[in-house]
């Protein structure tokens, strides 16, 4: 997968940002979102069987993993009031 040339690879660390400038999930935070998606899907699935299908199952996980961290970042719950990509972008645009 080619990296996005628009993303400043020098700041912040490229390990934390993907080719779109979105934040990567690692360690405990990654586990948290996967477990949260699983617990909610299993719990709701027991009572609402129509949720247990090929489309909603994968979509549920992707929604949690993509949207969840984005929302918590926006709400300032993770200490990242702006996304890493925004930081990278503003750093790039700031005259030095």
């Amino acid at each position: 997968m080619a990296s996005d040339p628009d993303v400043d690879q020098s700041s912040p660390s490229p390990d934390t940002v993907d080719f779109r400038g979105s934040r990567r999930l690692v360690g405990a935070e990654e586990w948290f979102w996967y477990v949260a998606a699983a617990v909610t899907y299993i719990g709701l699935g027991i009572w609402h069987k129509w949720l247990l299908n090929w489309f909603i199952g994968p979509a549920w996980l992707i929604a949690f993993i993509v949207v969840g961290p984005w929302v918590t970042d926006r709400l300032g719950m993770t200490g990242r009031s702006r996304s890493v990509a925004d930081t990278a972008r503003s750093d790039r645009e700031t005259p030095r």
Partner: protein
Amino acid sequence: MSWAAHQFEIYAVQAHLPQKMKGKVSFWAIFLGDFTPDFLSKFWVYGFTINGTRYGSDVPHQWHRGFPGMGFTHTLFFGVILTLLIWSWRKNRAFTIGYLLGFAAHALTDINDSVGVMLFFPFLMLNFTSETWAYAATVDGGKYLDAAAYYSSLGLVMDLFWLIVVLISWRVLTREHWRTQIVPADARIWAWFGRWLPERGLLALYRATFFYGLCRMISWSAWARFFAEPGTYGEYDVTSRGFPMDLSWTGPSWLDARSLPHVNPWLAYPAALMLLAIVYVVIIRLWEPMGRREAKALAPRSRSRNGTHDGSGVQADA
């Protein structure tokens, strides 16, 4: 039929590719191959109801695994035909081999229920079944009774077996494996998804089938054990809430296992293992010739694009 086993086996196949194919077989092809048999046949097994009228098969197990019926969709013969069509269309080795492996995994796994599959269709119309658990899709019980029976029998053990196989090969679920083994074999597909999803979404997409399999296994099992009301699905001599677990062969005993004319069950595993071995030997033998043929087919396309590689992940060492 098998439930989450079909989701787990995709990763198991991916994790146990022959050494020379690692990182070169399409994950999406394995997925599609595994998905095809039920995609073509299952919609009519449970049926659906519109304005009080039920549309679906009158004899679900005959439709699903028999002939006449759609049982041919669960045969290696049909899988090979589809594989040949795919090969003749795109000359894409990564996708062709992956599709055949996925299809074979599905067809061979389904010998375990009491109906089984026609392993040697069209040369032998008898089903091969080990009768490990009861096939339970019925007109009245539908998907719910089928799930209750499956997750109250050795079917649950089958799902757990495949889950353990994947967990033993846990690296197949890591970001590193996805980045180095999965993406290169399907570069264009992942690039296409990458237009909409960040990397963490792409990784979730790769893991999504495993996630779905695990969640549905737990969810249906919990429902069948603790929350289901058996009386809703027929006259069952069981407790008022929750279907009882029965790990006896061809269980659960509280349900009449469906079946079709079949060979001696002792022949099912040897026949399936023999066919699995044949599939592996064939793909290993065809790997290099297919690579050369693919490279030859790609050459004109590459020239027409000013000599640029089209990014299909073809290896020159083929």
